[in-house]
């Protein structure tokens, strides 16, 4: 059923917002992890060994997908706001970009 909240633009909005919040919350942890290199190579390496656990690897995969999703959603918004395109062209371009990106990432990450 098509309710005001059940159409592609609404889902694009939700994905963009949720991925954005998740990335913003992840950012301090990422910066702290990379900051471990302030004390030399060993602490960073110790953290990287810890991050090889399956659950952490799965989390990293989710984060990479969230980053790609936020990028695709952001490009869609910029196109909507700044390019004089017609709606169906924007939809096609977004679908194409999303498909290419998802295919590429799945191919490389599922190696």
């Amino acid at each position, binding site marked *: 059923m098509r309710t005001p909240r059940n159409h592609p633009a609404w889902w694009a909005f939700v994905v963009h*917002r949720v991925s*954005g*919040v998740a*990335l*913003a919350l992840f*950012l*301090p942890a*990422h*910066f*702290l*992890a*990379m*900051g*471990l*290199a*302030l004390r030399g*190579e*060993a602490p*960073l*390496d110790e953290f*990287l060994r810890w*991050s*090889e656990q399956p659950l952490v690897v799965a989390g990293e995969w989710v984060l*990479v997908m969230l*980053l*790609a999703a*936020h*990028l695709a959603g*952001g*490009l869609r*918004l*910029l196109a909507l*706001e*700044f390019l004089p395109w017609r709606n169906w062209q924007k939809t096609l371009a977004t679908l194409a970009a999303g498909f290419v990106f998802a295919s590429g*990432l799945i191919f*490389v*990450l599922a*190696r």
Partner: protein
Amino acid sequence: MNPRREVVLWVAQRLTAVVLALCVIVHLVTIIYAVRGGLTAAEILARTRGNVAWATFYVIFVVAAAVHGAIGLRTVAAEWLGFRGEMAEFAMTIVGIALTLLGLRAVVAVFGA
């Protein structure tokens, strides 16, 4: 609501979005390249230590992400939590500054200054 501030933040959000689009593409390609065959600190630091080009890239990336993230969280806090007004502006500023400082600290760590 201060209309002038809203315009400045709207423009800042779009400008940082354009910068971030380029940075994120580079970052994703680097991630995909770097994780092949496992990730080690030696490998990461061999790429970044003393490399001014990477350090410059990451400084731009960190500042753009901090500004973009802080403005984005401000919007979500206002629309989903009803958190707006001067306290929200203050919180956004603190988040932006904290993200910038933490990010720059990480850049210094991998650059090896």
